[in-house]
């Protein structure tokens, strides 16, 4: 690792000022589980590392028109939070699949977004729940849908002086069920070969009112499979219908070959796991009705 200066602002305003001052020479650090690895490999060599841990305004989980989750909330705290389990069980489930308990207790949800790694588990879960990201600069605040947040491999829409402050999860539709599948064929502590988050809301007649399908580790960014969603809208929620829609996911993804599988294998696994996740979500939705 290349030596750097560590700064630890006590407030968000102070952090925003430091970030504005040091710009591209600075990196923000929360849990550090992503950044430190990049620094150790010398892929990122910041002169200044700005620690966010002292900023209390970025912590906490509250219920207000859904959930508001402070950017510094750890993955572990979300996995076990009663509020999250009640209002956003898909997020709690996804968090339970993140790496190991040691990583989960350090890594933060805001960090997982800002990191921009398409292999992470939480972005697809947030996309499937219509999650939004609140980000601040000294000039003001904006809210960005998670499915429009990622721009490329480790790339996001964040400006260089912008800080993720909160994650918003709206109230989930009545009669909806969710599922999160992380396909880990080698070891249980790994990036997914492909991960799938789904949400299915059923109407009073039992047909699909609305579907959400999002994938991780399937392209340069976390992706939303809108074609699958559209194909299911208004349809019956039987296994055949769900299974017939699943192959449409291949147009939404563009996986890369790596140690976790060839691109072709990942495409096939995306189809299998989208189908399985849809079936599971539909079953849960039926239970919820």
């Amino acid at each position, binding site marked *: *690792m*290349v*030596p750097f200066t560590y700064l630890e602002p006590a407030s968000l305003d102070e952090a925003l000022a430091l970030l504005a001052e040091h710009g591209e020479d600075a990196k923000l650090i929360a849990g550090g589980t992503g950044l430190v*690895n990049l620094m150790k*490999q010398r892929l990122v060599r910041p002169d200044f590392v700005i620690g966010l841990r002292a900023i209390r305004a970025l912590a906490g989980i509250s219920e207000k028109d859904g959930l508001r989750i402070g950017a510094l909330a750890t993955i572990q705290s979300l996995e076990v939070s009663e509020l999250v389990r009640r209002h956003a069980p898909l997020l709690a489930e996804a968090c339970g699949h993140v790496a*190991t308990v040691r990583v989960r207790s350090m890594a933060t949800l805001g960090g997982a977004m800002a990191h921009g790694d398409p292999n992470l588990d939480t972005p697809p879960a947030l996309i499937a729940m219509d999650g939004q990201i609140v980000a601040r600069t000294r000039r003001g605040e904006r809210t960005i849908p998670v499915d429009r947040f990622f721009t490329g491999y480790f790339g996001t829409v964040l400006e260089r002086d912008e800080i993720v402050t909160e994650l918003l999860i709206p109230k989930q539709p009545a009669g909806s069920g969710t599922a999160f599948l992380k*396909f880990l*064929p*080698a*070891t*249980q*502590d*790994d*990036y997914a*070969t492909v991960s799938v988050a789904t949400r299915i809301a059923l109407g009073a007649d039992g047909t699909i009112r609305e579907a959400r399908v999002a994938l991780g580790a399937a392209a340069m960014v976390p992706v939303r499979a809108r074609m699958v969603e559209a194909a299911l809208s208004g349809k019956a929620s039987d296994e055949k219908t769900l299974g017939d829609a699943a192959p449409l996911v291949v147009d939404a993804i563009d996986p890369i070959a790596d*140690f976790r*599988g*060839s691109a072709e*294998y990942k495409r*096939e*696994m995306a189809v*299998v796991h989208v189908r399985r996740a849809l079936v599971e979500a539909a079953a849960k939705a039926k239970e919820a009705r």
Partner: protein
Amino acid sequence: MVKAPDTLERADNSQGVRCRMVAASLSGKAVGQPVMRVDGIAKVTGRALYAGDVDLPDLLSGRCLRSPHPSARIVSINVGKAKALPGVRSVLTGADVPDTCYGRMCKDIPVLAKGVVRFVGEKVAAVAADTVEIAEAALELIDVEYAELPAVFSAEEAMRPTAPIIHPEAVEFVPGAAASIHGELSMYPPIPNVISRLRVRHGDAASALASAHKIFEHSFAVPSVHQGYIEPHTCLVAIGRDGLVDVWVANKGPHIARTHMAAAIGVQENRIRFNPVAIGGDFGGKGSLMDTLVCYYLARAAGRPVRMVMNSFEELTAGNPRHSASITLRTAVDPDARLLAIDARVIFNAGAYGGFVPVPTLHGGYGELAGAYRVPNCAIEVLRVYTNTVPCGHMRAPGAPQVTFAVESHIDMIAHALGLDPVEMRRRNAIAEGDLTPLGEKRRHLRCRETIDAGARAFGWDKPKSPGIGRGMSTYEHPPGNFGLSTVALTIGIDGRITLTLGSPDTGTGFHTIAAQLVAEHFAVSVDEVEIAQGDTLSSGFEAGASGQRLTTTIGQAIAAAADRMKQDLAALAAERLNCAPSDIGIGADGSFSAPGAMIDRRTLMGWAAERGKAPLTCQGENTPGRHSDRTSFVAHFAEVAVDRETGQVRLRRIVTAHDVGTVVNPITHQGQIEGGLIQAVGQAMSEQIVLKDGAVITAHLGDYKLPTAMDIAELETILLPGGGGTAPFSTTAIGEMSNVALPAAITNAVFDAVGVRLVELPISAEKVLEGLRAQASAA
């Protein structure tokens, strides 16, 4: 404990080790007891001293610049800017160090590359600086100009007549190590890039194959894997004003390492002192000097002590991982499925240097080939070949995991081809008392069939199973090591306490605890009365170090010899105190000495002796090394998997492991060796692989090099068949290299049983299984 109806013992890993069996002849105080690690508290409280913990005044940090090319000529190196960086104390290149090459047998490893580089990761220059950060910054200031040369990465290609020759120079080697091998060995034969070719023959395999009822031929490939120890290679060298070279290094055999270092740097052995340190895992990977020589030259150039710690990137890309291997087996069987002959060709890819291992070729590459079976005719050819890849070393039963994967898959394939149950195939061919091993060696205590049967019974081999579930087994045979000199000293203090001084570190196996138990048993005292003192290489007697599951056997013998002498000396003292003849002295179960009408305890006796200048009392002991034990042990593994036909994913559901054991010195440590070895084998079956691209290791961090986690481990049941003791004191045998070798084949055999897909390469990948399922479907 669940006691099976016969002599079996079960250790249920889910609820700790609940059983033990103590032979009537034991005291019940030491051997056989679940004694806590003697170094346990020091380790868990952080007080244990590892090489990286040693701190000295003026200590510098050393780092190395490594080659980005697999094969290149070094045109020029400019270190001017690096030397000028404040805080840099010495910068070395190949031009600054002697031409002497290092190696444990083949002397082919330069301290720093001289003129050429032979693999991606080879050390080209070294820097010692005030901090690691300054040293790393200095490395970036070194300019090296390379002219790339042709490179070769696979052993098969390296043997072709047109292949580039990786070591055109005549490589020196220690002839003694070559002489210890049986069979027809040629070092550096006239085949391009071959380090060694070994041919071992027993019987007449060619004739048996020519006239056989049926012949089966299969080929297998096993990748290189890393040993996976937690502590990276670490060393620290300090040169005293008097010229004494002090070394702290994570090395499993300090005395031998000292001898190699002396030869390499031209300093007498008694002017080098390897100091005792705790070792954070070895698994065979810490037998070499690794960075110690460059560390010495940096310390000499800087005039200050230097510490070097490899980071995990360096460990994975430039450590000394296990040799990858390709193996072809041809086997003849008779109409009753009895094995008549095996013809085996094993090719080990050694990487760019051969010197990380102390032998011409890997013993497991031939020594235990088909060792569990009766094969009257056997012909084995083993080649070890240079390539422009990371140099390979030893890892836990060197060569055996690769070859056993092949043999145990092959036997399974033959069984299926003959329509025979795989357990029955193995039972029918299991070596039994009176049989010679496939290499023609005579061994006693052959309980192969009993071990298989015990495991099969506990596993429920014959019970019905659901679709998608598969069951497989594998077996392996390996004797304890009885080679190499071990010397120890026992000292009994004026307070009656006993200290064992030995030259072997505890590499993490718990050996120091075992040694304390062995000592305590001889004197029928509890382990609390025994201290373990690991001496430095000047103060302790010669010790050949941890390897080939030898320590309990060889140090056990040395301890027994020292204890016998000490008992005689104590009896003489007691006789003097009690005014009788030494032959009248009896030793009680509590360790006290008695004569007719008189008695004295050890502590009182030693107090009395101290007043007369006769305490403390020290006795030396040494073993009588044989080349190998004539006793051996067997293991049988059973694995159950579930295969997802849609994804190819293999889930390991259950493992039963049956072990033919002697006296278990410490049931906790023993079970730890079994479970640790199995987990290591699960990694090698399911996920671990050093992947190369253009010769460079690209699984360069633990995010991509996948070790198994606790969540990947299946339900495990251990079956022990006691009573198989060896010739070592207290009828112990070995466990260290028994559990990690054969399991991968049991798992791939189970995959075949589940879905009919045969994997002939490790590790298993879901994608490969799915490809196999597709091929099946399209063939149907």
